[in-house]
């Protein structure tokens, strides 16, 4: 026997509602489905040539991958704080957190630039082998998503400087959802590229 619900239909709907604009979640879902296919292609390649993948993985520095994971996780946490502040209509605090999220996030770009430069200067390029094809392609596409994310955060902080209530909150939540997607994709890329299956 079910306990009688004390929650009204409206309250239930509000609880179940997605944060931000639901259309953005279609974009996020489609994008993550695409990356899921990328990951599947990678796994198939790894199963067919495990030795090449293992040896290639050894050339990557997991400390840099971990650093980027921490950077994105911290940046994501700052976005959560921004959303919480906006829900309390503390727009200045929300804006400060968004700016901090973007600034911390830029550390990801610096680390990736350092890492790409190190690899290329050692002669490791897109055409070195299949592992590095995927390494550059997937991290490159992810980086493209990251750049778009930084631009979105820049627009978001500008909107928070002159907030328009509900409209700005929805924008901020949508931006945060996208930024978390960038974070989440990296959370899969990092173990898949740097850690999975061990190194040679």
């Amino acid at each position, binding site marked *: 026997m079910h306990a009688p619900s004390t929650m009204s239909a409206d309250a239930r709907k509000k609880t179940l509602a997605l944060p931000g604009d639901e259309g953005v979640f279609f*974009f996020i879902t489609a994008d993550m489905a695409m990356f899921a296919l990328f990951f599947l292609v990678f796994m198939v390649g790894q199963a067919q040539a495990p030795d090449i993948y293992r040896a290639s993985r050894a050339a990557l520095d997991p400390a840099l991958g971990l650093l980027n994971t921490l950077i994105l996780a911290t940046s994501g946490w700052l976005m959560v704080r921004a959303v919480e502040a906006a829900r309390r209509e503390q727009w200045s605090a929300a804006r400060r957190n968004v700016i901090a999220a973007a600034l911390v996030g830029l550390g990801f770009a610096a680390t990736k630039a350092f890492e790409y430069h190190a690899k290329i200067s050692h002669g490791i390029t897109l055409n070195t082998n299949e592992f590095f094809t995927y390494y550059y392609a997937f991290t490159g596409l992810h980086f493209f998503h990251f750049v778009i994310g930084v631009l979105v955060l820049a627009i978001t902080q500008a909107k928070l400087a002159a907030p328009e209530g509900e409209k700005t909150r929805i924008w901020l939540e949508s931006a945060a959802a996208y930024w978390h997607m960038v974070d989440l994709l990296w959370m899969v890329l990092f173990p898949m590229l740097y850690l999975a299956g061990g190194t040679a």
Partner: protein
Amino acid sequence: MASAPMTEDNSYGAWKFCAWNGMIFMAVFMYFWGWLGHNLPPFAGDTPASEVAAYFRDHRDAVRLGMVMSMTFAVSYAVWGIAIGKVMDYAIGRGHILTDLQVWGAGLTVVPILVSSSFWLLGSYRPEALDDTTLQMIYDAAWLLIDLAYAVTSVQMFGLGFGFLRDKRAEPFFPKWVCWYSIWVGFMFVAECFMPFFKGGAFNRSGILNYWIEFSIFFAYAPIITWYSLKAIGRIRVENGD
């Protein structure tokens, strides 16, 4: 007093015909360009020149017909874009810059389709007189152009997606998911940038990522947009009492 109609152009039959051009384009493109032109899927980047050349020589008339039809109907993509533009004019106000981007993006998409099809046609024109590597080069040039011209179509997709997101009706002409699908497809086309770097594997022109996934999401695009455009035209007609 009855309110004035929001559009002075009530030739809805013409609007619908233009909107149907999206499907006409896609049908022609898939059969003539895709099937007869051996582009469904294409030869991989690492296919020997002799194999590509043999196809042109053995199927010259099929390729010629495929590309003649592809070039003839390429403009239907622009016609389709103009129909979508009319709906956008009505949905978000005439002369909006996003409408212009959508229309121009659709119009410019015709150019790489025309030019790349002319390359394939060139290869089939006198293949017996050309050596294998020349024919391969023509085939490569066509594919490099059609893939790397993705950005003009992305402009259309962004214009359409962001434009219809501004439709403030209680029930917008295009659901939000369609708008975001449009934006996403335009966004994901950037993966085509990898294509020139590969002759084999998932990112080469016939690979699972650069061909099967990218072209599948594009092939699904026109029917979805056409469907909602036709529905919107019907609603506009009713709203204007025509």
